[in-house]
């Protein structure tokens, strides 16, 4: 028991150090920091607002698919904030490390390799939560008429919890795809393919509840929906009672299943790994 606790304490210390180094790295190049961390994820919602403006301008009714134009604007603003917080595949280097054989130097060190990507996840989440919060309040101050407000403090907290769990699911999903590099020579295309599909399912293009009902019925069983579209609707107060629990009912088992899958793939992959690189 005391050995397990000592191991956990060791991992936590390493996580803290990794997070600290990850912060130093992103802050080292200032132009890159501004571009990558501040502006990332903003363009798409802005373009979608312009598109929806054109669509609503010639619509006969005020609402399309149950959404008015101000609500859609609110959705896209929140989509930009949430998108910033979600983990994405470019933050992982494990596939390259396997492919080039650089993984070997980590495997011989006395710590679990997954602590390193986890450190990056923690750093990215802390930084992006801070940036998204700043952007949100700046927007609320500058354009209060258009800016979305939470239905209640608890709705905001519940939405935030769903986003964090969803982001963790993205970390594990991309990690599982990346470590397929133990078997495949190139895996980035799999991650990008998954990203395209996940973007659509998550409601980044169009709110899922604005799609035909069959789409919503299917997407509600997947974690990308609960990582973006569902938290936004929860935040805006457009969801029924028990919605948050339903989200937890999908996200937590998915998280467990992905973690299990990660461990199995890692164990099997390490058996194949020869450290030769290409």
């Amino acid at each position, binding site marked *: 028991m005391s050995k397990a606790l000592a191991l956990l304490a060791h991992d936590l210390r390493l996580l803290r150090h990794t997070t600290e180094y990850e912060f130093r790295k992103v802050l080292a190049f200032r132009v890159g920091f501004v*571009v990558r961390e501040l502006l990332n994820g903003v363009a798409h919602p802005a*373009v979608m607002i312009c598109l929806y403006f054109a669509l609503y301008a010639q619509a006969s009714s005020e609402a399309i698919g149950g959404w008015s134009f101000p609500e859609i604007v609110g959705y896209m603003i929140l989509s930009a904030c949430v998108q910033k917080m979600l983990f994405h595949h470019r933050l992982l280097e494990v596939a390259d490390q396997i492919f080039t054989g650089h993984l070997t130097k980590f495997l011989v060190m006395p710590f679990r390799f997954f602590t390193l990507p986890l450190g990056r996840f923690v750093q990215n989440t802390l930084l992006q939560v801070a940036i998204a919060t700043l952007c949100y309040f700046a927007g609320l101050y500058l354009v209060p008429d258009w800016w979305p407000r939470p239905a209640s403090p608890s709705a905001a907290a519940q939405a935030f919890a769903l986003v964090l769990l969803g982001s963790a699911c993205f970390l594990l999903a991309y990690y599982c795809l990346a470590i397929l590099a133990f078997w495949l020579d190139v895996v980035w295309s*799999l991650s990008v393919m998954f990203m395209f599909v996940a973007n659509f399912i998550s409601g980044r293009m169009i709110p899922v509840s604005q799609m035909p009902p069959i789409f919503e019925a299917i997407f509600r069983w997947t974690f990308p929906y609960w990582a973006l579209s569902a938290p936004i609707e929860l935040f805006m107060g457009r969801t029924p009672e028990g919605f948050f629990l339903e989200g937890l009912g999908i996200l937590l088992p998915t998280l467990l299943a992905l973690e299990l899958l990660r461990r199995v793939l890692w164990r099997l992959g390490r058996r194949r790994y020869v450290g030769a690189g290409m």
Partner: protein
Amino acid sequence: MSGARHISLLGKCRQRLAILRQFLRVGLVRKAQFRIDFLAQVVMDLCFYSVHIITFELLFGMGDGFTIAGWDRAAVRVFLGFLFVADAFMMTWLSQGWFLPQDIKNGNLDPVRLRPAPSILVYFFQRFSPEGAVNFLCAFSYLGYGLTTCGPLSADIIWTLPLALFLCIWAEVVVAVGLGALEFLFVNSDLSRFFIEMAQTASGKPLDIYKRRVRQFLILVLPVGVLAHVPAEIVLGRCHGLELLGQVTWQILLGLAVFALFRRSFKRYESALS
């Protein structure tokens, strides 16, 4: 003298075509080894196309007779066809551009500087991708489908289609090279990758959804609007006569200026920039 110059120009063209042929050969050999990756990349691009198509089909399906800033469903299909052709061309010939930030940072461009051919040709076109060529066929098929949904193929469409395709591909090269030049100024900033993504996002919708000045900027300065919006306007008969001539002339001049800017920026490159 002019005869010698003519032979020299012809020789240069032959040399460049020979280089492209070698890149093509190496690309085919490489993909013969990575067969699963070949399939994965074909499916990946098909996912990209599908997401765009489904998004617009859903938007148009929200009401009868909907248009998006004057673009009806059939016109948007033509627009998407050009967008996919531009993307397939980028994936087929210009994918090395994605690695430019890393290559500058790691000092990998010395061989490009030493080779006896233009740096743009040798660097950007070095990674031929056969899967991109397969997706080219898919993109062309969708463009053909989009054109047929607009009505019977008229002589005007057939006449303007090569010009529209030329502009679409020219703009793709200009955008990739122009944004790549930024990386020499701001090392390790990832600016080119970020702006390519921005450009793809902005150009993924008909530009009439933006205000006039934004639209003009995206066509005349950046020029991501020429990837799909302008070619679609040309074949749909919305851009003709002097306007068309002016557009083509401007885009060619802009492209040449961008290439000159890249060559100038490349002179700033040192192996140890990082």
